[in-house]
């Protein structure tokens, strides 16, 4: 658990030498306790003190890198308590037991998912390759090679050293995690993972056994770990994921301060709908790499949307890019409407506009990412800001239909806008997005 300033001060040299930049050792200790400075800024700490302190001042959950992605590093159980830091990754499950057609199908389906949503590229980040004992090392290597060719990051789970070596060798730099370290093989797997600088995935019969293995690995100097919490049933997987995170964040159990792997493909046993339900569950509750059979658009659209929602800082609003969004095939002769760049406003309003089927140009202005009334109250959505938008995007000369629909909640801007945008017919729209469909249909006729 977090150390208090005084605990650190007791172990400090107490010389007030100022080499750390602080006036006194006490001041330095308080800053370290707050997380504002790190211990290594003091050159005079005794090795014994350092050893005692460094484990105690470590963050409760380690941040693990998988290629360009970061996992873990969380400090709270729920996003409203502060914020969640690193979003989970989604993976597709490939096993050397599967026929080639099945493997090809899964890869093709998963690779087809590639789109952008509010500035974020949505892809299957990870391919999970299983190299089981029933298959020859050559076969395992072949499947790993196929997976590596996609360019995505690989998790390789191997039954033994021979298969691990074969699969890792053919996967090359794509391999990022070696999974399957258990009570029997952890030493060998640890050596393999450490030599290739891979994250080591621990897979044990239960959490207690996992804890034992992690303690041994940590004693051997490896803290680049991830824990497979899948277990034998859905209930067990959920319990494991919850307990691992609770132990790390609430009870300060450093040996469980690692991200997790949840393999929903193994839990759902071919039921795609159950798999989607579980992927949603583990996106919210502590799956760091959530593995599915494969990812199609049907699963990706809701899951990636959910993830994008949950892994946002509650203190920072989600914004969309200001600009003109033509909807339903709108062109220069279609009417225009204006609103703010708050992502939720954008989604709700554009959804309703699309539902109306009426061609319309949607203007998104830079309002700091706040909702209509909030940004209006803050002066970020005003006749002036709309006029500036018209200048920045050269609206007046581009659009022939000079009708501009204003959100009903800022009807008060009508007069000033008419003065600032001569030639434009300013129409007050609805106060709620849900009323837009009828409003537009009536408006058109």
């Amino acid at each position, binding site marked *: 658990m977090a150390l208090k300033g005084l605990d650190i001060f007791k172990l400090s040299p107490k010389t007030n030498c100022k080499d750390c930049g602080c006036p006194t050792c006490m001041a330095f200790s308080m800053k370290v306790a707050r997380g504002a400075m790190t211990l290594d800024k003091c050159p005079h700490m005794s090795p014994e003190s350092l050893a005692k302190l460094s484990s105690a001042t470590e963050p409760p959950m380690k941040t693990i890198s998988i290629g360009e992605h970061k996992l873990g590093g969380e400090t709270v159980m*729920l*996003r*409203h308590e502060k914020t969640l830091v690193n979003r989970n990754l989604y993976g597709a499950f490939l096993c050397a037991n599967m026929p080639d057609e099945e493997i090809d199908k899964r890869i093709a389906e998963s690779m*087809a998912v590639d789109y952008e*949503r509010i500035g974020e590229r949505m892809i299957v980040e990870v391919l999970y390759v299983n190299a089981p004992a029933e298959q020859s090392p050559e076969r395992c290597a072949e499947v790993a090679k196929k997976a590596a060719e996609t360019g995505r990051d690989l998790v390789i789970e191997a039954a033994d050293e021979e298969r691990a070596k074969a699969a890792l060798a053919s996967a090359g730099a794509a391999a990022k995690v070696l999974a399957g370290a258990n009570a029997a093989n952890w030493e060998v797997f640890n050596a393999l993972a450490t030599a290739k600088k891979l994250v080591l995935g621990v897979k044990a019969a239960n*959490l*207690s*056994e*996992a*804890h*034992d293995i992690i*303690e041994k690995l940590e004693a051997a100097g490896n803290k680049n770990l991830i824990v497979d919490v899948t277990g034998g*049933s*859905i*209930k067990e997987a*959920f*319990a494991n994921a*919850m*307990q691992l995170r*609770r*132990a790390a964040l609430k*009870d300060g*159990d450093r040996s*469980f301060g690692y991200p997790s792997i949840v393999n929903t493909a193994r839990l759902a046993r071919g*039921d795609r*709908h*159950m798999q*989607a*339900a*579980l*992927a*949603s*569950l583990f*996106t*919210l*509750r502590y799956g760091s790499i959530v593995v599915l059979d494969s990812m*199609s*658009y*049907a*699963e990706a*659209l*809701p*899951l*990636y*949307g*959910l993830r*994008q*929602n*949950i892994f*946002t800082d*509650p203190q920072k609003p989600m914004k969309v890019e200001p600009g003109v969004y033509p909807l339903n095939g709108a062109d220069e002769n279609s009417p225009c409407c204006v609103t703010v760049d708050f*992502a*939720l406003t954008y*989604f*709700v309003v554009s*959804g309703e506009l*699309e*539902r109306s089927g009426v061609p319309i140009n949607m203007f998104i202005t830079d309002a700091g990412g706040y909702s209509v009334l909030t940004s209006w109250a803050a002066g970020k959505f005003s006749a002036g800001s709309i006029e500036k938008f018209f200048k920045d995007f050269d609206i007046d000369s581009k659009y022939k239909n000079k009708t501009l629909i204003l959100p009903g909640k800022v009807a008060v801007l009508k007069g000033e806008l008419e003065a600032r945008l001569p030639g434009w017919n300013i129409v007050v729209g609805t106060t709620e997005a*849900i009323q837009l469909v*009828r409003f537009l249909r009536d408006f058109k006729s």
Partner: protein
Amino acid sequence: MGFTAKAQVYKAAIQETVLGAGEKALTLGGARTQPLCAFDEAWKNAPAVGVEVSDIPFETAGLPALAAWYEGCGSFGDRVKKAAEMEGAKFICLHFEGADPGGENKSVEEIVALAKEAAAATDLPLVIAGCKNVEKDQALFSAVSDALPDRNPLFLSAREEDYKTIGAACAMANGHKVGAESAVDINLAKQLNVLMTQLGVPAAGIVMNLGSAAAGYGFEYVASTMDRVKAAALEQNDTMLQMPVITPVALETWSVKESIMSEADMPEWGSQEERAIEMEIVTASACLTSGSDAVILRHPESVKTIAAMIAALA
């Protein structure tokens, strides 16, 4: 040295509320653990899945499985009966969209007749959802409540604007249950519960509808509101936030782009029905994980899957 898990069981519990009457009556709430954490302590009552049936038949273009499920159903009663047959269905939500004065504007008498027809078609508990028009919903809920005195239905929803009429007519006069609807905000939710109890509605007669959103459409507000409500209910024993939560998932997910764009318009997205089902499933699962005690769904596949997930977690 291994690891021994500590069960996280609170002293406070989610309030228990009974919907419906007779053998099929359904109790919501009762948990003393975080949502879905049956591994900490076995559930008194599992979360429940209900099926939405609208008085206006669903648009089924591009949705062959949904169309097939209701094939041959001539009347509203037929559809209710068929909905009740879905695997895992524990209650039926009668959604009277057709009462909307801006739409079909069905009269209160017509709606009452439909509600009676539905009640005769199933003995599952009934949840009555209105048309979102404050004036119409007040008249409609009062009349339906009077028409189904012994069925103990739940009315969705009473809002700040109409909780007095609905609370008095449905809950106080007839002893029925009322859903308190607030717009994803813990303070508004609590305030409405306080107002309703001050009016004289018993706390046990209230179920919360904290608002919903489809996955990807501002779901972080739904999740964080539910997280905070559950924390207040369990950790701080806040009795004004201990009511069970019901979430009409289907009413959100079936109108988003992912569910309504046809395959012809979006060939790379694949089957429209699969998209609509997965959107409903992912959203429902996320609601239950965040703390819903009941979810309302539309598609038989979603109902089956979510019910199976709940059973697997029990």
